[in-house]
């Protein structure tokens, strides 16, 4: 008897050990799964920041510029309209030529001149047009300026182009490398804040390309989306939650809204293309159309959030209002809606954040164009921030890689800001009834 008892104990003990072992394994698996998600998040941000932060600064080269009168103002009458047309890039070329007088052969000279950006000439033009009206003698003087280098120069300076690899595998020739190193040796190369990235539109020259035009386009689109989807969403939610009777019709609307929230975004793009553009003849690439499509997409999100906010308001509030003689509409508009509004706004901000990150439907309605100018109104051709990321990601130049990462970081910063606002709003107005 005692023998079989201890036998049983041993068997049960072994079973318990095995079961506890399973327990630990299962728990570790769960923790591992969580870690996988979080590790990817970390990896993700690490890669983006590591490749993107260099785009904040770009290379400038110190050159001694001579504002030669025969180039800038051959007529000598200081006419700004004529000066505007002058060959400012020529001044940059002259400066480079003076710095490296030994370069005489035609192809070598072209390689030398390619070290500097076209933007350098534009910077000189702005400076001259700015100075000459107050100081006509400015033309003819000489000064040292930090001017914008070309993207390839920038890449060499930042170390993204390996100087050690063979010339044939490199975008920059040995001669160009020599000149850059000569400039670096006498301290004429420096990394400065990259203002073009934050103020410019798209450009085929990476050193001049920026996200401002896309940001403005995204902004217009969000304004249109907000103006359309917030009132519509709130009104729908109020109707469904406070007025509609439960019947097959409202059931249909409800199923339909839940389903719309899960329809792939590209399908909304197809709707925009065939309805708004082909049937209604609205302009392609306009933020208005993008905003329309995005608001149809955001609408279900806002409706669902608004309904949840309305259900969270306790019935006692409604009963109290009705009891003192308010009509149903007065009850809803004067008492329920103000209490539900913070929740609705939270949902709206989250919907807006999703709309800001959306790009697939915008590809459908032609917002993938090459936009240089900042749009002035929601009717101008524009692109959006995520679409700009998409466009740059397709480009082969190394200089666009860091700009894509930086643009993503800016986009994520906006999204984080919006979500943070939503969280704070929820915290600030959260009520327990």
């Amino acid at each position, binding site marked *: 008897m005692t023998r079989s008892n201890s036998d049983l104990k041993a068997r049960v003990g072994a079973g318990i050990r095995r079961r506890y072992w399973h327990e630990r394994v299962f728990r570790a698996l769960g923790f591992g799964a969580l870690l996988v998600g979080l590790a990817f998040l970390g990896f993700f941000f690490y890669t983006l920041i590591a490749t993107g932060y260099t785009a904040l600064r770009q290379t400038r080269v110190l050159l001694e510029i001579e504002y030669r009168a025969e180039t800038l103002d051959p007529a000598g009458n200081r006419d700004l309209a004529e000066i505007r047309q002058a060959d400012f890039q020529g001044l940059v070329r002259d400066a480079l030529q003076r710095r490296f007088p030994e370069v005489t052969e035609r192809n070598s000279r072209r390689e030398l001149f390619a070290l500097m950006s076209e933007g350098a000439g534009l910077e000189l033009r702005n400076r001259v047009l700015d100075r000459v009206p107050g100081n006509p003698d400015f033309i003819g003087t000489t000064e040292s300026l930090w001017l914008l280098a070309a993207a390839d120069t920038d890449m060499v300076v930042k170390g993204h182009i390996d100087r050690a690899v063979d010339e044939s595998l490199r975008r920059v020739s040995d001669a160009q490398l020599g000149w850059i190193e000569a400039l670096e040796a006498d301290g004429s190369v420096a990394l400065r804040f990259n203002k073009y990235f934050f103020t410019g539109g798209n450009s085929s020259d990476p050193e001049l390309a920026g996200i401002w035009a896309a940001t403005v386009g995204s902004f217009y689109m969000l304004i249109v989306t907000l103006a359309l989807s917030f009132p519509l969403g709130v009104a729908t939610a109020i109707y469904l939650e406070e007025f509609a009777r439960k019947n097959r019709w409202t059931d249909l609307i409800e199923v339909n809204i839940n389903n719309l929230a*899960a329809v792939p975004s590209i*399908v909304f793009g197809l709707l925009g293309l*065939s309805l708004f553009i082909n049937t209604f003849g609205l302009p392609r690439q306009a933020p208005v159309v993008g905003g329309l499509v995005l608001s149809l997409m955001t609408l279900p999100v806002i409706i669902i959030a608004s309904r949840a906010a309305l259900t969270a308001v306790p019935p006692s509030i409604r009963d109290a209002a009705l009891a003192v003689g308010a009509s149903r509409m007065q009850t809803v508009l004067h008492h329920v809606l103000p209490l539900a509004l913070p929740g609705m706004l939270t949902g709206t901000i989250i919907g807006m954040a999703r709309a800001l990150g959306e790009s697939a439907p915008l590809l459908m309605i032609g917002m993938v164009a090459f936009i240089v100018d900042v749009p002035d109104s929601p009717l101008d051709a524009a692109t959006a921030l995520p679409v700009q990321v998409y466009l740059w990601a397709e480009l082969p130049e190394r200089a666009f890689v860091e700009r894509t990462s930086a643009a993503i970081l800016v986009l994520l910063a906006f999204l984080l800001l919006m979500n943070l606002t939503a969280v704070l709003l929820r915290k600030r107005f959260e009520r327990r009834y």
Partner: protein
Amino acid sequence: MELSTILFAIAGLAALSYVAGRQRAILVGARDAAPKFHSLPGYHGAYLAFWCVLPLLLVFAAWVVLEPSFLRASVLAALPSEFATASGDELSLTYNQVRNFVEGSSVAQNVSADIAAAADVYTAALDNSRLLLAWLLGGMAVLLFAIAWRRIAPAFRARNLVEKAIEYLFIAASLVAILTTIGIFVSVLFEAIRFFQQVSVFDFLFGLDWSPQTAIREDQVGSSGAFGAVPLFGGTLLISGIAMLVAAPVGLMAAIYLSEYASPRLRNYAKPMLEILAGIPTVVYGYFAALTVGPLLRGVGDSLNLPVSSESALGVGLVMGIMIIPFVSSLSDDVINAVPQSLRDGSYGLGATQSETIRQVVLPAALPGIVGALLLAISRAIGETMIVVMAAGLSANLTVNPLDSVTTVTVQIVTLLTGDQEFDSAKTLSAFALGLVLFLVTLLLNVIALNVVRRYREQYE
């Protein structure tokens, strides 16, 4: 006159009539011997405003919709006789030239005298149309204002009418969601039908060869274009399958850990962090898949002597899976939390360990909800666009090898519809047929999933 000016005028009229109606009610109410008003003055103001503005807005909307066809008709009627035989496309082109010329577009400044003359017609017609609209709206405004103004009286039940109007506005708003679905279905179906007039449904759904490049000239090689969508469906399923292989176990285990094991502190931090993953735009995942994961896998493949395409389905599926993890985990988290505590307590009372309880009690109880969540995740994976556009291939290979490059339905839709193309070719229209299939499949998955989830919730409520 600009349309925006007219809109501003209508908005001004709304404000004005509200103030006027309110003021009138107050004045009437202040008279001696006036009986008590049924409605507050504000309701009389709102009544007046609604009466004046809503019909005006309707007319305005109708005008905006109809005006372009009127302009087009008057311009085309004014064109010289040699345009009488022109085809519809040529007329459209001419009409666009005229409009570009009027709007001062830089590309259209050197145009023929005909176009310049037509442009004058266009400008005149536009001016006439706007002037007529302004007069019409103005007349209506005066008339409506007068009618509503006379109704303001103590016994007038303005509040009831205003509230009824607001309720109808709410109902109208809720119709937008329905109209969107109908709009999607009809517009996509319409274009898809035009496609199926050129290519048979059977060839499309069961054909094994996809090469939509129809030639410009008839005598070019391979000019026919093949529209068999099976390789696209295969590619989509392959990539979605890989994504689900990643997302389902990881997302589910993460949800189980968060809801059953994690301390409230860890849960408070880890859950929002996972949700950040869900908030990252898909274009970012696409960038990541194309620039980091694709080359990484290719490098690993090279070192193992495996031929891995840099656009391999594996890389795309992995990244898409990571994108879906938070989607699966937050949906399953809700579902698992909805399982009543009494079931767990019963299981513990019988001596089961926590993991046994989870596997044998909680998960079976939550199974319908989890299945629903996974179905929604699959629908999400099938419709995902940016990741595949940026990281998957363009050539339609019918293969189950995850190391090969495949293309998907969404990739083809984007490639077919971006860039220049004429709108009637089978190539362009095929995108809408693909869109129709995509819409129907995701619709089916969503409806099933939402139903399952809803029934499951009701079961424990």
